[in-house]
Each structure stands twice: as structure tokens, then as C-alpha cells.
């Protein structure tokens, strides 16, 4: 059905849109609607009511095989990451439960994903060549565009109010002057 195909592409573009809104501009000017858009996109992309027509049919089957283990694995990795001693001490409950859920994701992978041949995996891996080529060409064109821009004049010295703002921000962050 064409509606199912539209739903998949709507979901895909909403996911990209959500990521774009979440990463746009300076950190304090990012769009606040990125998270709802991302969730809406993921739901639209993953939850299909009807079976789409070709060429989205194969994609739809791949999504169906990926969803169970991917989201379980994501949750497991999230919990395990909270538990690992990167900055804080090891948190055993999160770490152990995370790894149990990760093991569950392996079970779900073998249960729901279709068996794929080595040739099929190698063919799928070749999509990475296309992705790398596109990233390289994009980097090249951005470099050309950036090199064409003449360098700007040196920035003027900070005003008194700007200096005061910087001083206040740093003092607040290092905890000086709060007592």
C-alpha cells in the first residue's frame, strides 16, 4: 500500500529533521521540538500498520527484523554505560542488568532476524563505500567553500559589561563568590 510507503519515508525524514533540529546552531539556540519530532519519526518509521509495496517491502522486512534486538540492545548498552566506571565508581546493579539485557538482545536477534548469507553481508557492506564517498565529496566541497571566504578582521576587545559577564560565568562555574 502506498500509505505504508509514505509512512516509512515520513518517519525517515522526521528522524533526520529531529537530529538536525537537535544539532543546529550554537548549543543555546537549538530547536526545542527536536525530541518530539525524533520520537514521532521513530514511531512512524518502525510501527507499520500495513505492508508497503516495492521497493519499500524489503526495507520493511529488515526493519521488522531489526526493531526487537536493536531497542533491547540500546536499553542494555544505556544501562551498562551508566554502570561502567568512566567518571564515577562502578555501579553493579546497572552494569549487571545492562549486560543481561544485552544478552537478551542476542536471543532476540537470532529469534527474529532472518538468516543472511556471507555474500549478502558483503553486498550490504559495500553501501559503506557509497557513504564514505559521499562524506568525502561533501568534506571536499565544504573545504573549497570555506577556503574561498576571506579571513575576518581580528575580534575587538571585550567591553566592560562583556568582561563582567565572563567573570560572573567563570566564578559561578568554579564556585567562587557563592559563599
Amino acid at each position, binding site marked *: 500500500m502506498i500509505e505504508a510507503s509514505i509512512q516509512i519515508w515520513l518517519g525517515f525524514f522526521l528522524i533526520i*529533521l529531529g537530529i538536525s533540529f537537535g544539532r*543546529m546552531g550554537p548549543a543555546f539556540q537549538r530547536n526545542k521540538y527536536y525530541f518530539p519530532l525524533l520520537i514521532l519519526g521513530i514511531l512512524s518509521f518502525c510501527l507499520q500498520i500495513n505492508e508497503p509495496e516495492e521497493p519499500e517491502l524489503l526495507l520493511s522486512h529488515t526493519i521488522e527484523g*531489526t526493531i526487537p534486538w*536493536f531497542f533491547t540492545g540500546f536499553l542494555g548498552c544505556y544501562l551498562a554505560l551508566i554502570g561502567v566506571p568512566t567518571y564515577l565508581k562502578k555501579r553493579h546493579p546497572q552494569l549487571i542488568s545492562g549486560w543481561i539485557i544485552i544478552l537478551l538482545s542476542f536471543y532476540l536477534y537470532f529469534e527474529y532476524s532472518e538468516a543472511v548469507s556471507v555474500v549478502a553481508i558483503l553486498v550490504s557492506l559495500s553501501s559503506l563505500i*557509497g557513504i564514505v564517498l*559521499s562524506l568525502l565529496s561533501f568534506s571536499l*566541497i565544504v573545504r573549497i567553500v570555506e577556503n574561498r571566504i576571506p579571513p575576518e578582521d581580528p575580534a575587538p576587545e571585550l567591553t566592560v559589561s562583556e568582561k563582567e559577564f565572563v567573570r560572573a560565568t567563570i566564578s559561578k562555574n568554579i564556585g567562587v563568590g557563592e559563599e
Partner: protein
Amino acid sequence: MNEIIIDVLYSILGGFILSNISIMVFQIFSYHPYSRPILPLIFQFSTVLICLTIIIQLNADVMDLSNSLRFGLATGLADLLSILPIFYVLVLYYLFRASLRSLPSDPLLALLDSESGLN
């Protein structure tokens, strides 16, 4: 032409189209005064158009540009999802190493702990 070679070609074109379309959408919707997306967008649009034309030439079932775009994106996404388990195993390897690691002794953190203990 050999069927596998054709499939590999579809995969490469699919990955190229998927990546370019994603970056194009990203550039348009994350626009800010310091970005200069015009030239990259024109370049990417042209390269995607070339890829779509190649797919139309190769695949007899694909007749027009919109179908070619759907085919390219669907192939790219399906291939990416198919190889996701490989990256998942890689991520798990590093996660496993991080799980076994113990927190390195940091004199500054130890000082912070002892000071908070005093307070």
C-alpha cells in the same frame, strides 16, 4: 552483467544517495547565519541526480526519478540496517572492556573525597 555486481552497485549507489539526502536535509533544517550551504547543496543535488539516472538505466523496473529515489533510499537503509549487528558487536567489545576497567586513581579526586569527608 553479473547479478552480484549489480547488487553491489545498487548498494554503493544506495549508500551514496542515503548519505547525501540525509546531509542535504541536515543542512537545510539546521541552517544558521554562519553556515554556507548553497554550493554544497547544489553539488550534492547534482551527484544524487546522476546516481538516480544510473539506477534508472540499470533497473528496468524503475521508470522515473521518484521511484529511483525510493529504490535508492530503501536499498541504502536496508543495507545499513543489515550491517548494524557488526557495529553492535564492535560497540559491545569496547563496552565490555570498559566494564572490566576499574576507576583510575586520581589524586585530585582523592583530595576532593577527603575534603568532603572532612566537611
